[in-house]
């Protein structure tokens, strides 16, 4: 083989990409034009963005994080803190959420530098729990009671729509930015590291640095999504923002849909919200069904539903696999 790094990769299945763009466009248009409460489409957009961010880490570098609720909390609290103290526009505050969460992610990456596999998963989980407990003790942000967003210039008539547009923009940017990223040399390097780290390193890919970049990117996506979510409810508390349920939701969506594919989180998100809407009157049953589906998926389709489809048909709506011609 003539060195995958020097020869230009040729991506297969551009017809699929047209399908993918049409699908995402149709979903976005239905979210915009279907006559329904904008809160649900907004939440769907945010959760899909988080899932796509987490997928970039889990599906493409193999690092299974159980602690991304840390970034959701950090993003939300950063937003509330800068808006309340500096008095800036909440949408400008999202930029602060991105910067602070990136910094936190770099620190966490340094702390967990030597931790792999389960050690990484649990290490970041313990760190997320530390952040939850510390924020719960911090008087400036209202400790365990949480804090209310103090933004008097918000117009209630347009605010809901503005938040929805932010969420939609985030998910579209995330979906296509991750897609674009994976088709660059860097993205191919990530997949190479996941599949065989030694071989990847031997052709000049820096595994450590690539992982850190993917980790920081996934953290920033989750942080901005979390910030937009808590912006929409104007209130944040540590038990909610650092809740493990965020992580479970993301994990369910990516794993059931298919980790390491860009289509998987779309399918997973659809399944998650359909289940939730159908079972919302049955209390804890939804969570039990969710857990059962995750376990059954691992038993019978460890590659996730889209992985199953892809293995049978070779379809790619967002082609990131390539062939040498």
């Amino acid at each position, binding site marked *: 083989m003539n060195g995958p790094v020097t020869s230009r990769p040729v991506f297969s299945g551009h017809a699929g990409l047209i399908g993918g763009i049409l699908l995402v466009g149709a979903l976005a248009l239905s979210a915009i034009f279907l006559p329904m409460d904008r809160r649900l489409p907004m939440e769907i957009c945010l959760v899909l963005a988080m899932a796509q961010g987490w997928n970039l880490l*889990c599906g493409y570098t*193999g690092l*299974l994080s*159980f602690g991304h609720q840390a970034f959701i909390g950090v993003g939300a609290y950063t937003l509330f803190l800068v808006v309340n103290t500096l008095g800036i526009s909440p949408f400008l505050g999202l930029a602060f959420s991105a910067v602070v969460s990136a910094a936190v992610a770099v620190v966490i990456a340094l*702390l967990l*530098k*030597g*931790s792999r*596999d*389960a*050690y990484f*998963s*649990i*290490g970041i*989980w*313990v*760190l997320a*729990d*530390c952040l939850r*407990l*510390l924020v*719960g*003790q911090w008087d400036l942000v209202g400790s*365990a009671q949480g804090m209310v967003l103090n933004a008097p210039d918000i117009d209630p008539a347009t605010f809901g729509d503005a938040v929805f547009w932010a969420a939609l923009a985030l998910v579209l940017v995330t979906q296509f930015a991750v897609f674009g990223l994976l088709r660059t040399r860097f993205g191919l390097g990530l997949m190479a590291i996941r599949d065989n780290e030694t071989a990847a390193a031997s052709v000049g890919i820096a595994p450590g640095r690539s992982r850190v970049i993917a980790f920081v990117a996934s953290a920033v996506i989750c942080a901005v999504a979390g910030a937009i979510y808590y912006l929409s409810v104007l209130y944040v508390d540590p038990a909610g923002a650092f809740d*493990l349920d965020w992580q*479970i939701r993301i*994990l369910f969506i990516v*794993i059931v849909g298919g980790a390491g594919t860009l289509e998987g989180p779309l399918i997973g998100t659809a399944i998650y919200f359909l289940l939730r809407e159908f079972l919302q009157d049955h*209390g*804890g*049953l939804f*969570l*039990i069904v*969710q*857990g*059962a*589906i*995750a*376990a*059954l*998926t*691992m*038993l019978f389709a*460890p590659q996730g539903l889209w992985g199953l489809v892809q293995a049978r048909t070779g379809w790619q709506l967002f082609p990131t696999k390539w062939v040498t011609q």
Partner: protein
Amino acid sequence: MSFLPTILNGLMVGGLYGLFGLGLAFAFGIMRIVNIAHGEFIVLGAYIGASLLSVTHLPLPVVIVLVAVITFALGWALQTVMLNRMIGPNPVPAMVATMGLSIIIRNALVQYYGADIRAIDIGPLQDQGVSIFGTSIGVLPIIIFCTAVLLFVLMHLLLTRTTLGRAFRAAADDFEILETLGFNRKRVYAIAMGLAVTLSAIAGLLLAIRSSYSPYSGVERLLISFEVVIIGGIGSLRGSFLAGLFVGVVQLIGLRINPNSGPLFGHLAFFLILLAKQANLPALFLRRRT
């Protein structure tokens, strides 16, 4: 204000934390399976025990044996039905599957028992105390601690003196050789998972007798178990025991300093040790010595 009672109590509860870690390390060491539902099995032990105590009014030691049998069967079933199909170099499927299981158990407990915080009442023994080194300490914590030590000793004997124990240790090193010797790998794994779950469930029941529990306690107990495993190392009974004592003492001292801190101090101590291990401090010291 003396810290002696706090330290003694930390040691007493630390024995149980050691058992939590031992169960988790056992499954990880032998099968390379990280059981995310570990915390839920700890809590499940408490609920099964509490139900048996209130329904049958049997004495506590009998209930402990019954809980051991039931949870052994659960662990066996978990390994046979689910986890034996996921053995391999990739740890992710088993972690995700057990995470799914943990969600099922947690929410089933909420559905069935309700989400309120409970405590197990076992009568007058709970209020008795004795005086050691001039400080008063409960009889019950001492009995519980001795039970934990006893379980550690039994595990040590099992691993060193019996064929099954040798099979476990061999399985941890090289399962292929084990299979050539005529052992059924999957059965050895099923027994190991049964034992791992049993140890944690008994420890969970004992912890529930001396403190409170709810369906949501599982996550905190899982994190404690992990901390014990990573501090104490895998494949060392003594390591698990000492790490359990350490986490217990740190946590109770932390709660004494700041009653609202929860498991925060335990987490922070764990991170300091994790960082020290990464920086390979012991190696630095050893190099200087030679």
